[in-house]
């Protein structure tokens, strides 16, 4: 699942997933909507999975030093 260019936010996606779970649990959706939203949530979770896995695979930090080297 590709993230679209406009800043994909982990937080926002997680919030959407939580919202869908709550809706399904509330039991007020009809069955077709349940399937539809379940699919959406699974897609979102896949995006999160990709994001987190990418991070975990990094072994180290990307460190950058700002500015000119001052004499210490």
């Amino acid at each position, binding site marked *: 699942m590709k993230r679209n260019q406009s800043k994909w*936010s*982990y*937080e926002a996606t*997680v919030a959407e*997933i*939580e919202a*869908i*779970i709550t809706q*399904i*649990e509330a*039991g007020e*959706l009809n*069955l077709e909507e*349940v399937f539809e939203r*379940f699919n959406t*949530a*699974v897609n979102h*979770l896949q995006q*999160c*999975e990709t994001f*987190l896995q*990418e*991070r*975990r*695979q*990094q*072994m*180290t*930090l*990307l*460190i*950058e*030093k*700002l*500015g000119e*080297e*001052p004499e*210490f």
Partner: protein
Amino acid sequence: MSFTQPNLLFPPTVLSVGGLTQYIQTLLEQDEELMQVWVTGEVSSASQHRSGLFFTLQDPDERVALRCIVWASQLEKLSILPVPGEQVILLGRIRVYPQRGEYQLMVWQALPAGEGLMALRYRQLRDRLEAEGLFDPARKRLLPPHPQTIAVVTSPQAAAWGDIQRTLSHRYPGLRVLLSPALVQGDQAPDSIVAAIERVQKDGRAEVLILSRGGGATEDMACFNHERVVRAIAECSIPVIAGIGHQRDESLADLVADVHVHTPTAAAQLAVPDLAELYTEHCQRLNHLITAGQTRLALAQNQLQHQSRRLKRLPLERQLVQEGRAIAHLKQQLIQTVNQQLQQRLTHQQLLAQKLQSLDPRAILQRGYAIARRQNGQILRTIAALQEGDDLTLQLSDGQVKVQVREIMAAGTGHEAESEQMEL
């Protein structure tokens, strides 16, 4: 000067006590240096009287003492009260007390010396900045929950930097960390820190800034109480986490920062979430979704099963059989009734046929009756209107006979007529 200085070229003049004392008094009290003098020392004893506070100031290095007095009226104007054991800086003038042959320092200002002085300066700056609202809790910003780039202002040589790096790489490998180096102690530290913060802002990528150094002596931490540093933090465009190792009070940098903690490690922990924890939450979320979906599905399936069972329990078989039987019964009844009717009709018809047969004129004719007709074909039923000589036709079973009337006789009058009529 009310008297002349003694002339040392001449043999010494013997002075009176008063004269000498007066000389000393003038000497001391009129000396420019001593009319307003700053002196530092340690307060060794103090006693409070109605008229004022009397205390002794000791030289910490030499066994020398100076008696001091603060008049009651002046006491409240002092920044601090001289307390035995404390190092102080006093402002006053030397007075001579002729009656006791003493000189004393009349004090009108007292300041804490050494650490105390720094503490006073700290206090004053803190009060001023607090009044401006810089430490207001309402000003504090929330930290971004999931930054992708963070900045660290510290000395690259400091142990703090190592701690931060270790903590960050454990928690969130792949994080982009911008190190903006700064001096964290010494006279150049405040400017260095301010420049480092500005560098981070100019770069613009960082979402949160950690300002950190490990613990150290109080004097070494002075830069974090510097006004320029405090203002730079207050005006920083991104949230600032102060992770400055301390033993005692918080520095002003701590107070103005959006969050402050006691170690560089703690600062790094606050700055980024733990990826492993996030992943666990993520997996839990996935399970949660699946469970919710499954539960909902099971609910629908249960409903379906329930309805199916109800459906099955309906006595349809029995009903169908009953209905079948009922229909068969009706069918039988129908057939029976129709047969009956048919039978009745048949019987009736046979009856009618018989009747008809018996009414068949030909049978009657065969029995010997004849049909008499007039000339115009009209059937004769009565002898009236008949005349002798009329031509008649007699129809018999096997043909016709033309005859003529010879005689007419009414019924009952002659058996012969009837039998005549009948026998032909």
